[in-house]
């Protein structure tokens, strides 16, 4: 029973793919606009969202528990560090 419920449908993955393609096109389109530092925030934000979708859907990672919270905190800290060192600092 558990295994059956774990098998996502092909339709689910097709929808995920559509969403990821739309995000990619939006990200590429926004990069053509001259929005200054907002371009960077949008590009990294959309990339982060896409990465979370890949992790959660295709890789089926469930982020729960203490370790996962630590992992998320680490990733966020690294992302902020990169952002501030590279684009704000």
């Amino acid at each position, binding site marked *: 029973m558990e*295994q059956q419920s*774990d*098998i*996502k*449908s*092909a339709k689910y*993955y*097709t929808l*995920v*793919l559509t969403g*990821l*393609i739309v995000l*990619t*096109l939006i*990200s*590429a389109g926004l*990069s*053509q606009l001259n929005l200054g530092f907002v*371009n*960077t925030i949008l*590009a*990294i934000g*959309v*990339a*982060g969202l*896409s*990465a979370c979708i*890949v*992790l959660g859907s*295709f*890789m*089926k*990672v*469930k*982020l*729960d*528990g*203490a*370790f*996962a919270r630590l*992992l998320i905190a680490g990733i966020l800290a*690294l992302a902020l*560090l*990169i*952002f501030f*060192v*590279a*684009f704000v*600092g």
Partner: protein
Amino acid sequence: MSQSLSMTGSISQKKESTLSGVWLFIFIELLLFAGLFLLYGVYRYKNPVAFNLAADELSITSGVANTIIILFASLFMAYSTIAVKKGNKMAALFWLLGTLFVGFMFLVNRYYEWKGRVDFGLFPGSEELARLGHGDVLFFGLYFFMTGLHALHLIMGFVYLTYGTVKVNNNTLTAENPALIEKVGAYWHLATLIWVLVFPLFYLL
């Protein structure tokens, strides 16, 4: 068969332990790329103008095309996992071969993109690149290293995926024993995960 990162999960569960090796490898690879992202951030901070100008040398269309290609490869991989778990051997083989083909298309596009840069003399060690300045050398050094490392990951994925395809064909990877397809899938999707993070750094910023 979800891969929970929870510490509360029982480590003795078979489905968790069979995946732990590949997940450890995935974490190590993610850490490696995290270091490279940090390196990119530092170098970009030190050479903002050179990085902006160098990024204009890369085609956004090519980057978007490769992103869509690798997303389709992940979709086909997910379809093969479903087919294996449902015991549909022919569908599994079809989607696994489809994944290999689409993944190969990604590498073909990568080859032509690299060839374009090399033809313009924009590769590490070239006189043309050295003439452009330190920032361009760093940008294209990181570009070739990170996209090359990603391509290497994909080539290793090809070997792993081919092994899985042979197993499906020999009826040793079936709905009753699907652990290998989970591992192959996790490794393959990691290439997609890394690419969606690498893509904006070189093509959009």
